[in-house]
Structure formats: structure tokens, C-alpha cells
């Protein structure tokens, strides 16, 4: 492989990035801006909750911790961060769920004449989304991004997918799309199918199921169940991986069928977790894959239904962003192949198995609880290390039995009537003027305690149910299958960077010291940025700064214009 000059390849390029309000999108844009790698970034975003796209992007730039270092670096710019961003970043209103990304023909035509690469990061990452939404964003959105890229002057698409498109498989997963020369795809369980037919079939299924339910939420639930069943029948564990796989297959099959000049790079990260160093150590956003598992190890639940030797394929977000940058640089080379699939994973060269994950998580929690001011954490939880239980979550008899026991206790307490247990005398006097205040007060107190206990048991029963459901959702990844995502191409691409650029851009997943990363970066990062969300708490953004100057809005037909909206990212 010839030497990859990252800066050289990306110099002067105008890229359009979707999904910038998401975890990966933010860090990618921050990285590209911080290193000043491309000439201009146009971010496609949609308005939400009474805010237009520009306001949302401005809010992210001024408040999100992902842009902390960017804000610090350009705080002294005469025009503030907004001034520095002038000519470097603009915003276009669009929506990955809408046909043609929600772009008007005029804006689209203007983008086509200027954009070199479309970077499609947008995606719904729920394991079980409503298939209507999942297909709209993860499949149609990706196809619309590919169509736009094909019409743009650069004819290049970088599509961010996931390693888990491989579905329920064991062993080596190559950096390739499983599409035969005849256009037929192979599903994870070996079924041959036409991706176009499959898309029509799942959409028809959704329509059919929706028609049978008058209630909107019933229809949604039925679509999820039917869609999940269909995904599983082909070997994908959930709708998310199924949708992402379908998108990959459709992009490539259309590219081949139309013999288009589009060059595609598929970037597949495995499980994206807290940053090692960029934007800063521990940064995470939202509830990602590891957060529920880490939360669970800090509770009373001890037995984890994991396969000890299976790999938990985790990659820090900054390594994924470096991989995306390399894929982008590779795609911008003159000799870029028509299709390149690159995986950013660790399992094939620096594996981190579940036994170790659990051990390190328990050790980190032990340390934390040993210093806790909460006596329960210090005395009880500190000593409850989680252990591997080599049984599938769906075969776990304990959680259902526990849930049933707790519910029975709750039902007994709900039906508890203190009067029934009072001796005859006080019972007869209760409520009458003859009862003493002491008798009434004790009986009422017992009744009220029973009510409170019933409420707590009801909550505990719901939590146990959620834990059981969560473990079942994770079962394909933590117990059933052990895929090893190959990263030969990604590592070769990384190794081809010139010595001068290696420190900044090389993907360095081989050097991750898992103990240090997990205990000192990941778990503190999750504690700070993700676990509060699981508890229903808010994670505060940074103190907002003034953007100084309004962000540019991408305007059709003009070279560039500052929009007439006065929003400048000031504190609300």
C-alpha cells in the first residue's frame, strides 16, 4: 500500500457530514476542525424541539463537551469561535428520515456542485427501533446519502456502519460486504436473498402489521415484534444490525448494478465507547452498549450470563474517529477503489474478553465503594463482586422467580388491611370516638408502611424485569456468539501513514492497556456521562459561551452567506 498522506488527501476538500448531533458525529467534526484537515464542512442537521438546524449545531458547538478543546483554542479569535468557523463550517437543514435527506432541489443542486465527499454518520442506534423509523434513517437515509454522493462532484461516500452487520456468527468476520457477483446477498445464517426484495418485504410486513392495529402504540409494538422476528429468521439478532446490514448491501448492489462512478468506503466500528484522549479522556454521550452492563455490576445482581472467553469488542471513540479520518483520506485519493470496507475493532489483535471485563468492572466498583460515604455501598456492595454465570439469559430461572416472588409480596402488601389483624376490641373501637389516639396512630402507621413497602416492591419488580429484558437483549452479543472482526485493512491503512502524521492520525487500538482504559477511563467516563441518564438524571452540558458570530447557513446558488437568523449560540 502506498503512503497515505492524510493532510495531502484531504486538503481543499468540501465534505458534507450527517449525524453531527450524535456521539460519533460530534467528535468527528471536532477532530476534523481541530486538525484543520478539510477546506469546509457542511453539516446536515434537522430542526428539533422548536430549534432549527443552525440553532442545534450552534448549541452543540457552544455547550457540548465534545467541542471543549475547540472552544478553548479559538476563544481569543477576534470573532470568537463563530468567527473562526466562518468559511470552515456551515449548516444545511435536512433530515435523514426524509426522501432526498429532506433537501430542496435547489439546495441539492448547489450541494452537488460543491461537495467532494458525503460522510453519512446518521443512524438510529437503538437495538429495537420501530422498523418504520429504523428503515427510514438506517436504510433509506443511507441510500439517500449515497444518491447525493453519486450526484456530487467528488462522487465519494463514506458510510459509517457497524461491525455487527455480521449478525449472529462466530469466528473471523472479514472486511467485506457479503454480496455475490449475481447480486444476491448471504445473511448471517447463510440464507441467500435479494436486498431489494428484502427491503420491499420488510416494508410490506410493517404496513400489513400496522393495518391490523387501531392503536398507534399497539401497532408500533407489533411492528417491532414482527420486524425482530424477520431479522432473527435471517440471522441478525435485532433490527438495528439488520437495518445497517441491509443499507450496506443496498448501497453496494445499486452501485454495482448502475455501474456508477461512486466510490464507497464502509467504516465499521465495533462497540464505540469512551474516548482515550480526544476530545478528552472519558468523554461519552448517551447510553451506549457498555453502560447498562457496567451499571448492572454495581448493583446487587451478581451473576452475569456471559461467555467468559468471548470477546467484548470495544473501541474508544477517538480511535474510531481516527479510523474514519483515515477512511476519508483513503477515499479522497485518486486511486481509491470502488469499494473499501474497513473495520475498527480490537478483538482480532488486542482481545478483551468478558471474564476480564467483569473482573475489572468489579475491581473498579470495589475501589469506588470502599471510599464511599454511603454505608450500604461500603459495607455491602463493595463485597458483591459480579461473577460469570455460564447460562444464557433466556434460561436464567432466578430472575423470573425473583420477580414473581417480589410481585407476590407486593400483592400481599397491597391487599393488606391492618384492621383485619387488629384484636377484636381495638378493631371495634377503630374509627369510633371510643378509640384512643395511640391505637389509631399505630394502626395507621402500619397501614402506611405497608403501602410504602408495596410501592417499593413494585418498583423492584419492574427493575428486575428490566434487567432480565436487558440481559436477553444482550444475549446474542455476550453469550451466543463470538465474532472476531478482522482489521487487517484498517491496520494496513494506518501503517501506511507517513511518519510525520502517525502520531496524530494512526489508529492505535493495539496499544490499549485494557486495565488502565477500563478502570481509569471507561468506568469513570460512564459514571460521569452515561449512568446518570440511566437513573433518569440529566448530564449537564458545559457553561455555554457566545459563538460570537452566527454560523453560516448553506444557501443554494450562493457561494456562501450568513443567514438572517440572529441566533449566535448565546446562553438561553
Amino acid at each position: 500500500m502506498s503512503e497515505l498522506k492524510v493532510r495531502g488527501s484531504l486538503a481543499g476538500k468540501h465534505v458534507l457530514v450527517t449525524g453531527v448531533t450524535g456521539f460519533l458525529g460530534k467528535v468527528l467534526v471536532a477532530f476534523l476542525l481541530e486538525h484543520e484537515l478539510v477546506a469546509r464542512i457542511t453539516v446536515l442537521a434537522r430542526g428539533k424541539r422548536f430549534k432549527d438546524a443552525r440553532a442545534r449545531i450552534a448549541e452543540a458547538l457552544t455547550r457540548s463537551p465534545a467541542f471543549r478543546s475547540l472552544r478553548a483554542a479559538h476563544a481569543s479569535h477576534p470573532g470568537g469561535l463563530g468567527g473562526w468557523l466562518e468559511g470552515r463550517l456551515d449548516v444545511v437543514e435536512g433530515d435523514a428520515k426524509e426522501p432526498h435527506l429532506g433537501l430542496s432541489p435547489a439546495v441539492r443542486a448547489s450541494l452537488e456542485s460543491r461537495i467532494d465527499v458525503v460522510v453519512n454518520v446518521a443512524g438510529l442506534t437503538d437495538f429495537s427501533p420501530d422498523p418504520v423509523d429504523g428503515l427510514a434513517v438506517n436504510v433509506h437515509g443511507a441510500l439517500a446519502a449515497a444518491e447525493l454522493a453519486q450526484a456530487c462532484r467528488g462522487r465519494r461516500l463514506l458510510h459509517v456502519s457497524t461491525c455487527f452487520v455480521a449478525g449472529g456468527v462466530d469466528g473471523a468476520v472479514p472486511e467485506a460486504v457479503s454480496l455475490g457477483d449475481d447480486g444476491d446477498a448471504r445473511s448471517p445464517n447463510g440464507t441467500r436473498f435479494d436486498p431489494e426484495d428484502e427491503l420491499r418485504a420488510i416494508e410490506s410486513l410493517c404496513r400489513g402489521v400496522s393495518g391490523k392495529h387501531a392503536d398507534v402504540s399497539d401497532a408500533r409494538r407489533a411492528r417491532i415484534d414482527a420486524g425482530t422476528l424477520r431479522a432473527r429468521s435471517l440471522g441478525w439478532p435485532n433490527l438495528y444490525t439488520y437495518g445497517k446490514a441491509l443499507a450496506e448491501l443496498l448501497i453496494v448492489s445499486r452501485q454495482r448494478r448502475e455501474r456508477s462512478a461512486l466510490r464507497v468506503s464502509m467504516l465499521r466500528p465495533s462497540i464505540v465507547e469512551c474516548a482515550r484522549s480526544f476530545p478528552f479522556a472519558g468523554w461519552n454521550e448517551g447510553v451506549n452498549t457498555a453502560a447498562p452492563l457496567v451499571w448492572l455490576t454495581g448493583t446487587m445482581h451478581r451473576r452475569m450470563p456471559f461467555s467468559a472467553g468471548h470477546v467484548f469488542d470495544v473501541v474508544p471513540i477517538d480511535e474510531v474517529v481516527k479510523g474514519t479520518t483515515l477512511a476519508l483520506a483513503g477515499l479522497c485519493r485518486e486511486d481509491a477503489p470502488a469499494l473499501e470496507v474497513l473495520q475498527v475493532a480490537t478483538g482480532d489483535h488486542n482481545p478483551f474478553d468478558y471474564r476480564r471485563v467483569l473482573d475489572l468492572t468489579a475491581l473498579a466498583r470495589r475501589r469506588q465503594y470502599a471510599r464511599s460515604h454511603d454505608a450500604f455501598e461500603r459495607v455491602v456492595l463493595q463485597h458483591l463482586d459480579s461473577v460469570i454465570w455460564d447460562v444464557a439469559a433466556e434460561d436464567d430461572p432466578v430472575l423470573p422467580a425473583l420477580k414473581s416472588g417480589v410481585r407476590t409480596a407486593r400483592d400481599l402488601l397491597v391487599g393488606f388491611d391492618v384492621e383485619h389483624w387488629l384484636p377484636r376490641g381495638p378493631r371495634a373501637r377503630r374509627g369510633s370516638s371510643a378509640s384512643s389516639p395511640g391505637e389509631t396512630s399505630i394502626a395507621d402507621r402500619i397501614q402506611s408502611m405497608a403501602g410504602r413497602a408495596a410501592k417499593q416492591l413494585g418498583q423492584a419488580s419492574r427493575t428486575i424485569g428490566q434487567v432480565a429484558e436487558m440481559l436477553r437483549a444482550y444475549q446474542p452479543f455476550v453469550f451466543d456468539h463470538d465474532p472476531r472482526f478482522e482489521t487487517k485493512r484498517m491496520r494496513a491503512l494506518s501503517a501506511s501513514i507517513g511518519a510525520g502524521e502517525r502520531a496524530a492520525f494512526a489508529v492505535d487500538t493495539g496499544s490499549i492497556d485494557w486495565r488502565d482504559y477500563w478502570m481509569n477511563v471507561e468506568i469513570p467516563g460512564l459514571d460521569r456521562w452515561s449512568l446518570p441518564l440511566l437513573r433518569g438524571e440529566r448530564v449537564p452540558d458545559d457553561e455555554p459561551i457566545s459563538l460570537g458570530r452566527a454560523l453560516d447557513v448553506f444557501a443554494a446558488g450562493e457561494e456562501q452567506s450568513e443567514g438572517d437568523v440572529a441566533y449566535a449560540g448565546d446562553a438561553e
Partner: protein
Amino acid sequence: MEREPRGAAFFRLEGAITPFPAWHGARWLSTRAASVRRRALGGLISLVSAARTSHPALGSGLDGTRSLWRGLEQFSRDRLEVLGADFAETVLLPSVDDEAKRLLDLARDAGRTPVLIAETIAAVAVPLASALGIEHVVSNRLELEDGVATGELAEPALGPELDPRRLRDIAEGLGVSLAVSAAYGASSADRLLLGAVGLPCGLHPDAELARVCRDLGWPIVGSARSGVRQAFLDGFSEASR
């Protein structure tokens, strides 16, 4: 011109640097195994082994030390090193008294290389030595297979007594002369260590070592163990008698 030979300062961890015997660390660690069954088993093994090392009738020396660490079988490398560092930081380090620190400083000022001699395992001794600024550590190591402890000590194992031949090898490895080296011991088992160097010293010695020190004219720093300290260190031994 011939260079003056360099010396080392050998500090015994158990008793001299900290008041805790090796079995205390073994018990602390083994009762923090992941599974409750291993905790109970490990705790029992460490207590029985402590009795063995404390009472001559039950056997002592290297065999006792070897059995002490069997309770850590199935500990992962991560668990050993993380908990070992925690034990060193939260239990051992706060117990290092000012006399020991002063002697360490004196050794450095005199140009002697400080060496920590420990019956405990490296997972505990190394972080403690690092916190005290001691570069060289002679301690036990647990054998690991695929990152999991077998419960056996890697050879050469180090018991309560340091074999003089091994001490000579260590000195040779460090390029120091025993004749100009100092050693600080606390128990009667340290007699061999102290006897092998030019500058022996009892540091918080037990009653027997204190008597030996007085007989041989070796200096004693810190009081000969008495009261609570003596009770703690010899309590198990007393109880078993």
C-alpha cells in the same frame, strides 16, 4: 585509583517497614476473591498457614510461606495487581512509621541503594516500594497460567529467612558489597540477613532479635516490640500456643 565499593540498605518489609506479617496480606487478598466460596476457602488457607508459620510445632519456614499464598489460586493478574496495590496503599503505607522513613532517607544520604526484602508477593511489595521510592524489591511472585494464579510461588521462593547465598547473588546483581551494606530486620528470622552485612540493625525488633542484637552489639532502632504492636504481631502465635 580503586573505587570505593558501593553498599545497599536491605529493609525487611514485615515487621521493620510495616508492623504487618505476610499472612495478613494473604488473608486480606484471599478474602477479596470474586466468588464467595473462594473467599471462604482462601481465608481459611491463609489462617491455617499463618498458624503454621507462627508455631514451630506446625512447621515453619519456606513451606509455611508457600502454603500462605495458595488461597490466591484462580486470582487473575488484574485482581492480584489491583488489590495488591490497594492493600499497599490503604493498609501498609499508612502503617510505615517515621523511624523507617528516616532510616530510608539516611540510607539514601549515605549513598546506599535501598532494597526491600519481602515475604509478601510482588503485587503488594512493588507498589509499596514505589510509594516509598525504593527501586529494588526482592519478593515472592505467584505463578500465573494464562493470566490466572495457580496458587504456587515462582522459584526461588522467599521465606521468613533469606538464604545468605541468595543475598550474595542479589548483592552481586546490584553491584554492591555486603561488607559495606546495611540491613534492617525485625524478627528472629532476620538474623541471617543481619549477620551477612557489615552494618546490621534491629528495627522494631521482636524480643528474640532484640536479645540477639544486644548480645552481638548490633544497634536497635525503635523500641523492641511491646504492648499493642507485640500483641498484634505475636498474637496469633500466642493464641496457637
